[in-house]
């Protein structure tokens, strides 16, 4: 299902896209994404953020994988809003691609990609920093950190507050 949303600030239309991919993001996918931009000769720079599953140590057990689940419809709607905000702030940005994994992603594998292209590096850089932060804050994505002893804890991007949130 595709839905068009108007960007009030730029007049650009942003489709409701599905950012989720099943499993880890392969390095080859990133290479192909870069290659696809070769025809856009107005681009002068790409900026890419890649999120990788980190093997944190929690209570002497290491994180072996994160199982990501999401409220997919809301996450995709929120992403459309963030995309509109980014294009309003950096109107010269040529394109913006965001992908996030669902399912079990092992430590060391890639789970998140933010890729912006623009005529000049500054816009792409700033947009990627903004979009990365906003995705972490605003998208309903949940992460179960699977530990080496087969137990798990639930990950949170909020500052850890031992009084209100375990883990």
């Amino acid at each position: 299902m595709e839905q068009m949303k108007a960007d009030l600030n730029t007049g650009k239309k942003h489709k409701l896209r599905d950012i989720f991919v099943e499993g880890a993001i392969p390095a080859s996918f990133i290479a192909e994404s870069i290659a696809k931009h070769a025809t856009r000769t107005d681009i002068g720079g790409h900026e890419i953020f890649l999120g990788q599953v980190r093997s944190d140590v929690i209570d002497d057990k290491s994180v072996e994988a994160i199982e990501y689940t999401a409220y997919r419809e809301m996450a995709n709607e929120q992403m459309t809003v963030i995309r509109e905000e980014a294009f309003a702030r950096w109107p010269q940005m040529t394109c913006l691609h965001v992908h996030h994994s669902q399912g079990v992603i092992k430590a060391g594998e890639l789970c998140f990609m933010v890729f912006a292209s623009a005529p000049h590096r500054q816009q792409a850089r700033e947009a990627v920093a903004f979009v990365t932060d906003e995705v972490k804050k605003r998208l309903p994505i949940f992460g179960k950190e699977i530990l080496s002893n087969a137990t798990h804890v639930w990950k949170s991007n909020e500052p850890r507050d031992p009084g209100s949130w375990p883990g």
Partner: protein
Amino acid sequence: MKVLLFGIIAEKANAGELELEAESVSSLKHALEQQIKGLRELSYALAVDRVIVHNDQQLTGSEEIALLPPFAGG
């Protein structure tokens, strides 16, 4: 109305969704906290039709409700 559950809340309820009737967000929260053991102690947000609500509001019964534990994307 359908109440979608995610993350640690789905785990505690042992279900991905529940069917409940309530006339307002506050009465729904009360019913959910009765039904899902440990929910009261958790940090969570409530979304009505995919938008997080911060205040009480009336519900007609046709809304899609979701309970959202802390986000962990990225």
